[in-house]
């Protein structure tokens, strides 16, 4: 294993070398999300402390850190899911495509349509497979059956589920396996065509085969979406993400290319965490 030095990365790129951080489309240079001086409080508890980070378009960013470090809280900020919790407070800004998501005039429903989320435990609605994916479209006022049919198929294909369930669309979503249910939830999130996908431990309840499928899916989805994934599984972060952010006690300790974090992190505390010396 060799890690290219900064100097020869330029040369390697010119001869077609491509690692996870290099050789991707020009789009990658576009910044999708900017977090500036962001602080978050649960009552008196200061859960996120002065976070600054930028997330590129079509990148996968893995968020790692010990339990209680604030990584899920941070993830839920991107689509303001924390707004549903009492007694929370935040300072600082998060913008998506240059628009502040805390702007008073911003429609939170629109934001959540644009920033889809998938949770640790799959949570399909007690409806058919088809209805689960069509649900978001219908509540957004779309009634065109052909359009819905087309979008459901496309979303299920994008979620790598179509070939497995195309003959059972009217069966209950609960008839699917755990891994299939999770991909159904991803399809449901994709149906309303978000630009950003937030994944909170999406594979932690799945067996290795189903986990592998979700990881393959993430790899495919990043061509179209910007993805932020919270994971406790270090190897998973290493496998799926282009950039990794390490959180500790509410602070963003280190944020860098994933290969850098897992081979040569800048800070000792990051190294201690990724090598399992504490956690």
């Amino acid at each position, binding site marked *: *294993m*060799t*890690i*290219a*030095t900064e*100097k*020869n990365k330029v040369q390697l790129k010119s001869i077609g070398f491509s690692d996870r951080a290099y050789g991707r489309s020009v789009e990658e240079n576009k910044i999708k999300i900017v977090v500036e001086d962001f602080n978050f409080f649960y009552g008196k508890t200061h859960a996120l402390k002065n976070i600054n980070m930028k997330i590129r378009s079509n990148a996968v960013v893995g968020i790692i850190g010990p339990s209680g470090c604030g990584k899920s809280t941070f993830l839920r900020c991107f689509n303001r899911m924390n707004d549903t919790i009492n007694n929370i407070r935040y300072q600082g800004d998060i913008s998506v495509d240059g628009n502040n998501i805390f702007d008073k005039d911003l429609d939170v429903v629109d934001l959540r349509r644009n920033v889809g989320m998938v949770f640790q435990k799959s949570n399909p609605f007690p409806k058919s497979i088809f209805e689960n994916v069509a649900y978001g479209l219908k509540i957004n006022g779309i009634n065109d059956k052909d359009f819905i049919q087309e979008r459901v198929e496309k979303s299920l294909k994008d979620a790598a589920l179509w070939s497995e369930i195309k003959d059972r669309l009217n069966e209950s979503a609960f008839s699917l396996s755990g891994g299939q249910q999770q991909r159904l939830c991803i399809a449901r999130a994709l149906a309303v065509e978000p630009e950003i996908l937030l994944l909170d431990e999406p594979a932690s309840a799945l067996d290795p085969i189903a986990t592998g499928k979700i990881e393959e899916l993430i790899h495919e989805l990043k061509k179209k979406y910007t993805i932020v994934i919270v994971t406790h599984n*270090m*190897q998973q972060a*290493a496998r799926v993400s282009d950039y990794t952010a390490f959180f500790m006690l509410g602070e963003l300790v280190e944020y860098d290319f994933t290969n850098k974090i*897992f*081979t*040569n*992190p800048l800070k000792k505390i*990051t*190294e*201690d965490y*990724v*090598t*399992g*010396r*504490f*956690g």
Partner: protein
Amino acid sequence: MMKRYLDDELKQLNINILKMAAMVEEAIHRSVEALRKQDKKEALSVIKNDQKIDDMEVAIEEEVIDLFALFQPLACDLRFITTGMHINTELERIADLTVNISQRVLDLADQPLVKPVNDIDKLANQAKVMVKNSIDSFVNRDQELAKEVIFSDKESNRLRTSIIRELIDDYMMKDSSSIPKAVPLLLVARDLERICDHAASIAEDVIYMIQAKVIKHHRELL
């Protein structure tokens, strides 16, 4: 700091690499002594002993593969294990070169040496010191010593070239009947210099282990 099961495994890998290094250092010493004393028995013993080093190499390689499969090491652990794996390979190649030297001893047996082997001795010492220092730099995580090994590789090149030049100009060109006796010495010089190259490669791996900087083929980065 949490005690990790992996730490015991890494300690064991370290011990095994040191054992391998000790066997290889001994092989260098014995092959050079065999040449100096024209000791056929010693040369044969070095050749025979190479099997043990080969077995050790395979054992360490299997150990490393297990560590990757079972622990998925990261960061400093990953760098230590990959470095250990490279060092293992380099050491085995050094051992193969000591076999080559021993075979040259057998070629030259029972006939007087074409020239005194003082300068070959000097190159052999250089090789021994470089191998020892490269392993010490690994054990002690000593990047300054590793750099010293890398820089001293130039001297080994110089010594080899001077030996080869002398053998060609002063013996082979002047008296073609000396060629059968000169060529084995020329090959020994080449093999000793290659041992120095492998020691320098080990030192480069040590720099990677410490600094996560790949200087292979880019010594100007040092």
